[in-house]
């Protein structure tokens, strides 16, 4: 599968998922299992994405001190209730600075 096919699949799939919700019969939402699953799945996936992007490289476990420092800085920014873009800018800046000093 080429990258363009993956992009087309994601674009089409994301749209169908959105439309399915607007068009589905009302009672589907009343099922508590469905609600619970919807609440939980993004939490597990997002946490897994953070871990994989932080601590793996080319399919192997790998610790990058600069990136770890950047994420640590993002945690501090989150604790200080910084705006969304400030959080991202903090993470990038700290990562870049640590990379300059450690090499």
């Amino acid at each position, binding site marked *: 599968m080429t990258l363009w096919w993956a992009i087309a699949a994601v674009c089409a799939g994301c749209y169908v998922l959105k439309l399915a*919700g*607007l068009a589905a019969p009302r009672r589907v939402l009343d099922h508590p299992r469905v609600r619970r699953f919807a609440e*939980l799945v*993004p939490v597990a996936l*997002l*946490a897994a994405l953070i871990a994989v992007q932080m601590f793996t490289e080319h*399919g192997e476990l790998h610790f990058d001190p*600069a990136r770890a420092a950047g994420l640590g800085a*993002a945690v501090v920014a989150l604790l200080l209730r910084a705006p969304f873009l400030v959080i991202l800018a903090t993470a990038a800046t700290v990562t870049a600075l640590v990379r300059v000093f450690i090499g």
Partner: protein
Amino acid sequence: MGQTTHRSAAIRDGLGVGLAVGLSGLAFGAAAITAGLGVAQACVLSLLAFTGASQFALAGAVGAGGDLVAAAAGALLLGGRNTLYGLRLADLLRVRGPRRLLAAQGVIDETTAVTLAQPSPEAARTAFVTTFTSLYVTWNLTTLAGALGTSFLGDPGMLGLDAVGPATFLAILWPRLAGSAQLRWLAVAGAAVALCATPFFPPGVPVLLSAVVVLAVLVR
């Protein structure tokens, strides 16, 4: 408050969230180019997929050199929450036919949050349209700007842009974790499953496996 006041408050909320969150398209544009996508590919995702977490997930998995089927599946699993938002919004928006096809594209985290926060159905519809429009326009313009800017920069790692993806996910996740010990446990378990699976599976698959933890919580 009268109906007009409700609606102007809804417009203010919608524009505020749309413009502020839309700016993070800069981060997506940058992350996409860093991951090896082209400028056109980044822009097509923002125009047609238009759901941030899925877009970042696809770019991240591609950047990790992952299997594309697993990368796309991970992005779609994340997009599944928009289905539940749609279920919630259907009663409020009451759209049919071509307008429903158009409105569907706008069913995402931010529009749902602003729409459900309104005091009346009229204000909710106004909020949905305002948030969707301002966010869609801003997100797409900033995606283009971020992608073009980054492709001129050379090595994005020198600017620390590889930390932007994880920081974005953390910022999306943070409010949910703050409110619930069970969700914090789930997040840690999901991350642990993905890391343990990494040496044994092609990139992209470990992230999908973390969904198994959800089943464990549901069955319990």
